């Protein structure tokens, strides 16, 4: 049995999140004291770099390098930003950390401030997380009271303040440059990198932006050392990752697993297998701009590079499981809808390209697609991927590309045979009455909302295909299994 390992979630559910004493008892603030009084900033950065910790927000950029880049810059002011703008549908890893262990994030941010020479920290948190906000506010107050935050922390001459900024829930504001624009009170839109935030970030000053889960890993690494961290996970992706398991799986919820765990272990051992013993079809990782992983890669060890290699990505940790009842074309279309809603509208490929891509998929799921549509889709995806401005745009065609890669046959069935094998794409369904089974009870005709079923009582009925809206009411009302769907 695969064991979960709790690093980021170490205190969640185990201590009272509103008690700084319990946090201290759980080795809280040990890392800060160690850093402030026994180590120079560059020593702490070296520990983080040596640990191999990579950004848990999705990109997987080495955290130590990010800190070192900002530490190198000379500036009168620098900033530490905690990205708590968790926006993937169904994902709530950051929320769990902030609600269950707020002090650990504050402590890690303070250490980050010490390392890069910043005196100001900002937590950019979505306003839809009221409990997390309440606990953070409380924790900031307590930490100040105990001297872990504010002026001259524990007499070390190092000062650090943390304030909260509320995001209005725009997905793109999770992108670091858009997040910075949003804090500055501007429209949340990404800007071209370089310059990177570590050089020119908030108000043009060197800034590091790290995800909540990344910060949640910092203190244990400092306390236990980089070697300890490297022993967990894989060589290129040490440590653990929190995932939000969702979809057609028996046990949904948060899990924290060592990197390198396989998908099979996650689904069948931790997740308890597919619901109703149906057949596993695919898992979407990396949120709406991630990709799907199929049976053929179910034994791939999960880490940043392996997921990229099979056309998906780590993302912030959403994991949606699909079974045989899910239509992959429809599924790609669903994620694209999310992207269209959440695109900031700045660059052409993402603003217009994804809209057109969605319309092409719509043609497929409604049976109106031309035979040569797949190469057109691929060309458009390639443009969006390569020409979009930010990470959201560049990854937005991933669900389409990865389903095309692994389920091309399903696309072709939709296009050529006008058939959806999972019976999800309603426009492609055909309800028919089998005359031999129909005894003319008239129940279907009486319940049809568009009155397109005709026939005399006690004689077999017929569905007028031109008028049928494929609502399925006749199918559910027939007591004689006389209606078939094809």
């Amino acid at each position, binding site marked *: 049995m695969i064991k979960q390992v709790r690093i980021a979630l170490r205190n969640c559910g185990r201590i009272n999140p509103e008690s700084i004493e319990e946090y201290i008892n759980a080795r809280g603030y040990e890392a800060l004291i160690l850093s402030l009084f026994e180590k120079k900033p560059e020593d702490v950065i070296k520990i983080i770099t040596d640990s191999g910790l990579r950004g848990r927000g999705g990109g997987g950029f080495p955290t130590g390098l990010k800190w070192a880049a900002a530490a190198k810059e000379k500036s009168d002011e620098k900033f530490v930003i905690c990205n708590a703008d968790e926006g993937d549908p169904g994902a709530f890893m950051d929320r769990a950390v902030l609600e269950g262990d707020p002090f650990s994030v504050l402590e890690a941010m303070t250490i980050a401030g010490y390392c890069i020479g910043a005196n100001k920290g900002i937590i950019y948190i979505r306003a839809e997380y009221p409990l997390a906000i309440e606990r953070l506010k409380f924790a900031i107050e307590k930490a100040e009271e105990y001297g872990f935050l504010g002026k001259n922390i524990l007499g070390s001459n190092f000062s650090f303040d943390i304030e909260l900024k509320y995001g209005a829930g725009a997905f793109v504001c999770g992108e670091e440059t858009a997040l910075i624009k949003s804090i500055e009170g501007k429209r949340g839109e990404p800007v071209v990198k370089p310059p990177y935030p570590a050089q020119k970030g908030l108000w043009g000053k060197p800034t590091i932006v790290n995800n909540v889960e990344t910060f949640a890993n910092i203190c244990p690494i400092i306390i236990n050392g980089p070697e300890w961290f490297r022993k967990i996970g894989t060589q290129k992706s040490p440590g653990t990752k929190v995932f939000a398991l969702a979809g057609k799986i028996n046990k949904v919820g948060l899990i924290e697993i060592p990197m390198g765990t396989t998908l099979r272990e996650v689904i069948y051992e931790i997740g308890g297998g597919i619901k109703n013993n149906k057949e596993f079809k695919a898992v979407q990782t990396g949120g709406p701009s991630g990709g799907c992983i199929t049976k053929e890669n179910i034994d791939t060890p999960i880490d940043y590079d392996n997921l990229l290699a099979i056309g998906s990505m780590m993302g912030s940790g959403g994991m949606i499981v699909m079974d045989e009842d899910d239509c992959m074309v429809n599924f790609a279309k669903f994620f694209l809808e999310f992207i269209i809603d959440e695109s900031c*509208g*700045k660059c*052409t490929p993402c603003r217009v390209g994804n809209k057109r891509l969605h319309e092409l998929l719509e043609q497929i799921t409604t049976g109106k697609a031309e035979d040569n549509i797949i190469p057109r889709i691929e060309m458009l995806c390639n*443009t969006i991927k390569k*020409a979009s401005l930010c990470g959201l745009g560049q990854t937005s065609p991933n669900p389409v590309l990865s389903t095309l890669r692994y389920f091309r046959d399903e696309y072709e069935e939709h296009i050529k045979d006008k058939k959806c094998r999972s019976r999800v794409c309603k426009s492609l369904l055909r309800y028919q009455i089998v005359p031999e089974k129909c005894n003319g009870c008239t129940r279907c005709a009486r319940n049809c909302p568009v009155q397109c079923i005709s026939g005399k009582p006690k004689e077999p009925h017929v569905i007028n295909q031109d008028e049928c809206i494929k609502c399925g009411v006749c199918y559910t009302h027939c007591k004689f299994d006389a209606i078939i769907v094809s």
Partner: protein
Amino acid sequence: MARVTINDISVEVFKDSTILDAAREVDVYIPTLCHLDLESFNIEHRTGSCRVCMVEVEQNGKSRMMPACCTPIQEGMIIRTNTPEIIQIRRIVLELLLSDHPFDCLVCSKSLDCELQALAKQFGIEHLTYKGEMSLYPPDLSSRAINRNLDKCIMCRRCETACNDIQTVKVLTGYKRGFMSVVAPAEMKPLNDTNCVFCGQCVNVCPTGALTEINYIKKVWQAINDPTKKVIVQTAPAVRVGIGEEFNLTEEEAATGKLVAGLRRLGFDAVFDTNFTADLTILEEAHELVERLKKKENLPLLTSCCPGWVNFLEYQFPDLIHIPSTCKSPQQMFGAVAKTYYAEKIGIKPENLIVVSIMPCLAKKYEAARPEFIKNGIPDVDYVLTTRELAKMFKEAGINIGKLKDEDYDNPLGESTGAGVIFGVSGGVLEAALRTAYEVVTKKELKNVNFTEVRGLEGIKEATIDLDGTELRVAVTSGLGNARKILEKIRKGEANYHAIEIMACPGGCINGGGQPYIHGDTSLLEKRLKMIYTEDEKKKIRKSHENPYIQKLYKEFLGEPGSHKAHEILHTHYYKKCEK
């Protein structure tokens, strides 16, 4: 310096250059759309949002697509600008833009002057690959000046840079998200309900037909064709140096005589010059300045001929509305003089006299409609056309002004001095005022009329002028962002100038919101500027107070500068406009 390779050509460029800069260095063409470089003003708009300028960049063994306009070069970059993949990607990006753009090019006012259209032609796009839903919005025709057709917005964001960064009016912002994104005032308010000053700099930089002027051509044709009306026209100084571009005139000189000839052929009953009332403005303004200097109060005197700037003051600096000169702008002085003095002289009722202005400006359309300039329902100026609209009228009437022989303005409102014509460029109003103020204050003849220290396209110019012992500290600003800097100094009491000229548009009226589009080529502005000063030098009389028709106007009608009658007809007042 850093060395990079572009299409196998090695080039060394400054470290802060972009890929686009480097490519231009070696004559490699990369198409652009949202990018705009207003070189003469040191303003570069590079949001990197259209993605038309994508190039392939190989660095440290990795190859990526990057936007050329905003990617700084790094040592050793290997750049390719025309691989089949790049060309295909650019083409798809352009096709995507076209797929959300109305196809009414034939009836679009920007047709043949549209950068999107030009790019589509350059890419050889002859059919639509993508079709689908369009992002549609109702047009905004709320103002007298600016027509906003958001269906044609391609989100290049140039107008935002013009409005927010250059002019600091800050009316425009990105509105809505995703596919429905457009640039609009906050909450999609109609422009007329915002603090917009109608300078038209947004219109000047818009690459498509999303922002254009409100067009009055039809109304002017109707007036000309109305036998019961006498229709006269005035031409602003900067029009004569812009109009030639619309007819591909390559001469180095202004097209003044041809402009006059063309206007007569359109059927105007008399062709007059706003320069005449520019001279008149100088007499009044110089008088006002001398009075204020004597009393040492209400200084600095700010010029008031630019309605965009006056709007800006009324909205953003309502506490300072007492310091501008109370002189009406030359356009409004012309209207007022025409409907009183001139109408009387030729024996016509003001309601039967139609005054049309040809202006390089959009704010002038707004100004003409200000209630204080309309008496008993009769506006002093009836219709304002831009230089661009006039060019359209000429073309519609089959008049190629390039083929016409020069003609002279009519009198009595057509004679002007060199001081009048330089109103068309930043620094000109102040220079003209100095030419007269010098002689009024010192009672001596001014030998050298050229005050070169206030000339040029810089945003803020300062000078100290010796009026025979009296030192006059002056400043000249153009572009409202620069005006804001000066005004904030005045507000804090940190400015010790005696007179300041302020123009809303960077560079002055030569770069007005109604001028022929320059598409980012600021060398055209430098050409216009040169033409203005050549026009000045060609004039026999170069001081406003020596204009014989101005002298006659005072003798016959106004009395003397600053008289009661002059105040009644030539002066105005300003309003505190609270933030909308």
